């Protein structure tokens, strides 16, 4: 039995300890937002946060998250309460097929957590492991930079109250 925290809720599973976290989250707990693209840590479609760090869960045994905190795309925002990145994704019409986008957003969210206003180059290097077969990269980059700029403006307006 492996116990961990999933989107803030303690959970336990009797899936075999070597089962990749991705399948436990998708099939045992029914959260389908995280996707399977390669099963080998090569595409980023399965990205979740483990204790805040963007992690490829298709190659992470569920035993490795015992006692840790896992956040999925469902845990950062919903259609009625979008995360700022999700709002930017809509505004920039980022998705095409959409299949890679949960993973893209989770990697981007982890980036913005540690670097709220990244440069274009920082965005590119943080996102280089998330593949998009449809070629949404220009829009993914623009959406992340837009959220970063918002954060920047917010900090600035706090510093210099009007």
């Amino acid at each position, binding site marked *: 039995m492996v116990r961990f925290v999933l989107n803030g809720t303690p959970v336990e599973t009797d899936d075999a300890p070597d089962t990749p976290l991705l399948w436990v989250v998708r*099939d045992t707990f029914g959260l389908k937002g995280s996707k399977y693209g390669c099963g080998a840590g090569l595409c980023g479609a399965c990205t979740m946060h483990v204790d805040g760090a963007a992690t490829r869960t298709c190659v992470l045994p569920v035993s490795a998250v015992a006692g840790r905190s896992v956040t999925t795309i469902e845990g950062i925002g919903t259609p009625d309460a979008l995360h700022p990145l999700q709002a930017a994704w809509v505004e920039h019409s*980022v998705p095409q*097929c959409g299949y890679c986008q949960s993973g893209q957003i989770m990697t981007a969210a982890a980036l913005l957590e540690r670097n709220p206003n990244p440069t274009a180059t920082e965005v590119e290097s943080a996102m280089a492991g998330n593949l998009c*077969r449809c070629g949404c990269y220009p829009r993914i980059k623009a959406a992340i930079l837009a959220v970063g700029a918002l954060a920047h403006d917010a900090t600035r307006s706090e510093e210099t109250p009007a």
Partner: protein
Amino acid sequence: MNTVNVSRRRFLRASALAGGGLVVGFSLSGCARAPLPIDPDAGGWVPNAFLQLTGDGHVRFYCPRDEMGQGVSTGLATIIAEELDLDPARFDIVFAGVHEDYDNPAMGMQVTGGSTSIKAHYAPLRQVGANTRALLLEAAALDLGVPAAGLRTDDGHVVHDGARHPYARFVATAARLTAPQAAPLKDPADFRWIGADFPRLDATAKATGTAEFGIDVEVPGMHYAAVRRPPVAGARLKSVDTGAVRDMPGVTDVVEIGSGVAVVAERYWQARKAADALQPVWHDAPLARVDSATVRRDYEQALAGGAVSDGVDVGRVSGPSRGDVDAGMATAETVVEATYWAPHLAHAPLEPMNAVLRIGDGEAELWTGTQSVSGARGLVARASGIDAERIRVHNTYLGGAFGRRGTLTHVTEVTEIALATGKPIKLLWSREDDMRHGLYRPASLMTIRAGAAGGRITAWDARRVGGNITPDTIENALPGLFPAIGDRGVRWIAGAADYAMANWFADGSSIEGLFEDYDFEHLNVAHVTVDHGLPLTFWRSVGHSYSAFAKESMIDEIAVALDADPVELRLANTRNSPRLHNVIRIAGERMAAMQPAPGRHLGFAAHHSFATDVAEIAEVSVTDGRIRVHRVTCVVDCGVAVNPDIVRAQMEGGVIFGLTAALYGNLQLDGGAIRESNFHDYPLLRMDESPEVEVIIVDSGTEPTGVGEPGLPPIAPAVANAVFRATGQRLRTLPLTLEA
């Protein structure tokens, strides 16, 4: 030990035959109309196959085409919404089930592909929207007791004397009236949503992980299946020891199916591990003698008229021609000849193939993301013997397709597995399965000899060597689309097409794009079929994906030989293609104004495909033998841009998909098996390698034409032409690789 003997193979197929599976009740024409696959629980008024208006104000749009990322659900919703006069963002979009009313008007079949959807549905869906609106106005006039002439509509409301009444109020009355067939259409000058930018309608679902793909579907009692297939296409199972695997945790069944051995378990990971543990032994297949080097050598031999590998047939046919090419060459001042190569490619959509099937008592329900729900239904009917009218197909979002999700061997597999086990099944292919057991973009060897005189390209002699996709497409599509045709009939028809295209006339998709765009006075096109047996199919932009590389590289080579400006040369030779001429002119002006940074070089290419004209400029640098594409400018004329932002997105996507092919794509055969398996050896372009893409939409005012594919063909030659400017090396082989 538990060994399945080959002599007991295919019991499933035999039992399907015994159950009459090949002669199911599929009405080809003339029979009574089947009821629409509309959700009856939603109630309300269903004026036609596309709309369902409920009394509580919801409007469902049954989208007839499949959403694979190209934005078709937003585009078609916008077209019908414009004439209905209702903000498309207020639609609930449902992907339509199987019914002839949802056939693609461009094909007469319920298939999505060929960049046809917006073009083919533009006029019909406008009319459907207008007819429905007219009916609502008529109902409102009755309900309000006023003359219809005093009424107008505004975004889902009938407006009378300044009062706004929601459409829902008149639905009950409208349901009793008869719809007009040809209500007047809006003046395009009054369009509110067509031509406007707004976020695509599926963006929120796709940004929140709530959009449902085939892989996400669950049904009660569902078990998971993984399949082992032969490494070489066409090989048959000899034997397999299933004993050890049956005892693995969670495993419930191990069954033999037409394509290999399926393992069924309670959880996906259990099924996958057990399938990986199997050690099936396969018979030999003819393709096992083939390496990628064999393919290329045979193509070169066939081109030169030499001998090819034993057992490989060569078929030669003539394509379109005009004038007298020999005379044209004889009078040319300059003759240029070159040969270009494009390899096999995989589609690699990010969502691997999958399907969920539940079989009940004489009925079945299938969930899958497909480019043809009717083809999917036919395959279930064929493999199960269940009446097609009693099979419901639910289409989901497609996690990429690019032509791959028109061929549905996974649907046949899931049907065989569900029948053999009696369980609802989710079949999921691994990435490796997807890479190695698919169908592929054919490799192509193309030679062009061109003669020029007085700044005009006067003679064009083009020849392509390779396999044809149409026979494989027929073999894969017919069983689903026409279940009444038996297996032998399918094989006969596909064989006849194979023979005809090798010996009588060229498969159009083998030579398309190689010769049409320029005003050559003398033209000769020839095709040489050499097919080693790797399964082939459509791949985004089909023949254009390789022919544009040869054609637009050759145009650049001619410009170099003539010491002419490549844009001027194109302008002087496209007088008969005014729309293409125009995008070349506009892109040429942009290029003339560009001032690339030191070390960066520009390359130009233009191409007409899927009724759309595109010119692209690639800004490229070459450092330490590495090609880097920094910026692409794309000028596109697709007529009316229904949603300009989606047009831009499709051009961006086409360019980036095309760059993966131009710089990396190379699917190779080793002893008939695909060498590549996953994204480490079949890399996709990454964000840090991806160019900025600027898209300029030219609206020539014609009705809309396709955008899913036309962005792709010009990019490889544009990059190759830029690399020539940067290095002096003329790269004629894809993927583009510099000599050390």
